[in-house]
């Protein structure tokens, strides 16, 4: 529908005070594919997500989503085009219940006036329950988010993205701090989600990446060091060098 790729990032660079955090980077994401980005700390992984979601503006280069240039758009406009992003540390509204958290993300009543007059409709309730089922939180709908475990908060944040039915999911360290079982569940969740969209995952956990990723991109000092299948990556001497160091 949009050529081969949903997201095209071409020759993207950003500079902070003379330091190139992302350097002439070209990257693609396609529907039905989980693409993992790995790399040592400071490689530019999170910065890349910041650039795609409009949190940081690039010094040069192009970002196209569904063929449209999204380079100059604001964060909320980019979200509305269909890009959902989960942050590194789980970011949910602690004082609200799971239900209210999901309801808040429901893509309706976004202006002050419609939010003021918003009434909970059948459609909203149904959608919320559907998503809660998917993220294993159906029986916690009326718990306050602050009572959830770390892993459950991660799921809740993913759920808040799903309710908007994004075409591209960007997940920053989705399994950080999760138990082994929760990791399994998350892997299953992502494999389910990717059936309808493109997923980009930034992650350190190699086993997790191996389990889910169709394609792995290794970043190093803002550039792509290598791209390919997990097996090829893990045996590549350059990658070993970057990770094991100096």
């Amino acid at each position: 529908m949009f050529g081969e790729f949903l997201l095209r990032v071409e020759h993207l660079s950003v500079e902070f005070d003379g330091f190139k955090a992302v350097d002439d980077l070209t990257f693609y994401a396609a529907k039905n594919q989980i693409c993992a980005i790995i790399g040592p700390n400071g490689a530019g992984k999170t910065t890349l997500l910041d650039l795609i979601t409009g949190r940081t503006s690039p010094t040069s280069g192009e970002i196209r989503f569904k063929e449209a240039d999204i380079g100059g758009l604001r964060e909320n406009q980019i979200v509305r085009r269909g890009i959902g992003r989960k942050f590194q540390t789980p970011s949910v509204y602690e004082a609200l219940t799971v239900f209210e958290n999901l309801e808040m993300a429901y893509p309706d009543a976004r202006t002050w006036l419609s939010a003021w007059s918003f009434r909970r409709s059948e459609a909203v309730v149904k959608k919320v329950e559907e998503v809660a089922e998917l993220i294993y939180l159906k029986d916690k709908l009326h718990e306050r988010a602050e009572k959830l475990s770390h892993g459950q908060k991660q799921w809740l944040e993913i759920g808040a993205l799903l309710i908007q039915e994004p075409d591209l999911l960007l997940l920053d360290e989705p399994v950080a701090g999760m138990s082994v079982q929760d990791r399994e569940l998350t892997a299953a969740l992502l494999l389910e989600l990717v059936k309808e969209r493109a997923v980009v995952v930034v992650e350190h956990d190699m086993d997790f990446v191996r389990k889910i990723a169709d394609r792995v991109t290794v970043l190093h000092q803002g550039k792509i060091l290598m791209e390919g299948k997990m097996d090829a990556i893990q045996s590549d001497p350059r990658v070993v060098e970057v990770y094991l160091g100096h």
Partner: protein
Amino acid sequence: MERATPSPWSARFRSFTARLSSEKSTRENASFVLLAVLLLLVFPLGLDVFRLNLVGKYLTYAFVALGLVLCWGYGGILSLGQGVFFGLGGYCMAMFLKLEASDPKSTAIQSTPGIPDFMDWNQLKELPAFWVPFESLPFTLLAVLVVPGLLALVVGLAMFKRRVGGVYFAIITQAIASILSILIIGRQGYTGGVNGITDLKTLLGWDIRTDEAKVILYYVNAVLLLGAVLLGLSLIRSKLGRLLVALRDKEERVLFTGYDVASLKTFVFVLAAMLSAVGGAMFTLQVGFMSPSFVGIVPSIEMVICAAVGGRSSLFGAIYGSLLVNFGKTYFSESFPELWLFVIGFLFIAVVMVFPNGLAGLDLMKMRSFIESKLRRFQKPSVGLSIPKPAPSRPGVTAAPRSNG
């Protein structure tokens, strides 16, 4: 919540209070009725006209405090320039009244009759253009809301679109308050200078200085204030209220959920400005003058303390806080003028460091956790698992005034 096994005292207590607070809106309704009785019956019947007028004056600050609760307590946006909007509302009203008081007949002794006296003293020969529309009451009433609203809109959009918030926003609003008060004082011929606009007499021929007029104006003010409270209640009970708290606590998340955070913040800032302006206009009507001493940095920050003392996220607290702070101010300035700055200074410190939720924080919720912790001391945690979960009926976010910075 009846259980076969006897539940521990702490759990019983908790389920009791949880049930109480689950009927939060009922409680809010009761608070509202209480407030209405107080404002519409107790004060007018219990106080002489002089005191009633004084209370009416305090209540005009409550409009500002209400606005601050929405904008600061809920939205997390601290404005130190609310006096600007209070003042603009008040000045708009005062300009209309002044023009009415300056008809050519009663100003016949001036070198230019028919213009306000201070203009004449400053050798102005005709009414400045921006004063002319204020000869019309409908225009004036519109201007009371629109002028402060527009200023807040411009400032809000400019700042929030560029993601300026927190301390920077506070300082810039403070600077705006400083600028406006210097401007008013400096341009004496156009604004009445440091004395302000005084000697206001009639509203469409109706003398606002009589006792009867004062009582009527008090009622107008009280009804408007109750209306403002209802408006605020409907806002904080809606999704918009939850959204404001969400963006206070996790602005990034709200932004990345696709909301236009800047517009939402601007909206609540404009709303707060307009509420303040209504307060200002009612101040002018009840007190009979308006001066730059209600515009600058110091009055603006005193309005913040009203909201903070009442409890920064309690609409009702805002009103009681305004009454209490301003009553204290009058009392101390009459009896111990040198103590007032100490009192208000320590109030600031205490409200931040000891009672971040103000008067409203002293209620059941606080005492509940205190008593609970005492009870828990007697009950060993072996029974902890049988505590019934009140979760589904727990209050939403509105019940959790937080002390964020």
